[in-house]
């Protein structure tokens, strides 16, 4: 009987050089930069329950401008899969952390739409945005930390 081989992924050695990784090092660096900037932007938005949509738009524009870059950076990490990455365990954790940031980004983006176009602004929407923003900042910090701790040279190299 012939063994089935189509569901077997050869694991790569963990000692692979930074420049032999399946994803360019610049992509890891870009992701960390984008995630850190995104986290700062989210944390800077002070949730003021009495703001109008006009005030929310003014306060959240820096954050809205950061979302596409963060999404692109996350898309750049999509190729890091357990089957292709030398460190399987790390790749599994990264994929989970990346999914979490993507989910949180979508939540924050939806909340922003409600706040910046809503008339009037419901207090629940403001509270929801605060909670989702905190979750996004935490998820972004975790993902960034995961990359920085495993590949510090990639992140620090200019």
């Amino acid at each position, binding site marked *: 009987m012939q063994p089935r081989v189509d569901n077997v992924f050869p694991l790569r050695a963990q000692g692979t050089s930074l420049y032999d990784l399946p994803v360019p090092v*610049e992509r890891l660096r870009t992701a960390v930069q984008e995630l850190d900037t995104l986290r700062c932007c989210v944390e800077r938005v002070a949730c003021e329950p009495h703001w109008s949509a006009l005030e929310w738009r*003014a306060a*959240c524009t820096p954050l809205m401008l950061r979302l596409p870059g963060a999404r692109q950076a996350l898309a750049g990490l999509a190729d890091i899969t357990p089957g292709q990455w030398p460190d399987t365990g790390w790749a599994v954790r990264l994929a989970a952390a990346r999914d979490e940031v993507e989910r949180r980004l979508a939540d924050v983006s939806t909340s922003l739409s409600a706040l910046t176009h809503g008339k009037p602004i419901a207090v629940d929407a403001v509270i929801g945005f605060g909670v989702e923003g905190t979750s996004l900042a935490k998820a972004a910090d975790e993902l960034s930390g995961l990359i920085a701790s495993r590949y510090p040279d990639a992140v620090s190299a200019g």
Partner: protein
Amino acid sequence: MEHQVIPPGQARRWYYGDDPVEPLTELQSALADLLAKADDDPRSLDANSERAHQLVTDTCRRLSRTVFSPGGPLDPLLYKQAYDALIATRDAERDMYEVYANDLECYRERAVKGLRVAESDSDRLALVRRRRKYIPRLLAFHAQTMAILEHLRERR
């Protein structure tokens, strides 16, 4: 939604052509001056309202054509949320300007006719209220535009 990964070098290529930041900075600098004057003396806006409205219109048009345009530095599809927010604020400014400009015109016309004190006070109060509603719209538009300019400068 799929996102294409753009290498940093490619994302910045547009800057070697026409740079949209400089003219936008000049427009916003002019608007900032008017807002600073209005902060010191809100009545100064009465003489500059048309200019302020024109600056908003010109800024928004320039942003649409040179920044949030296909091939521009901020892809209109990717940056739709920020762009829609800018347009919503521009619309809010435009709507309130229409009312404020109308009140201003009425106030001036009626002042020429020599109103009694009570009527004059009433007109003035209405104008003050309109102005108070108009200034936050200018401020919000200015804040959003400055955030966009800051973002463009960072990408350079």
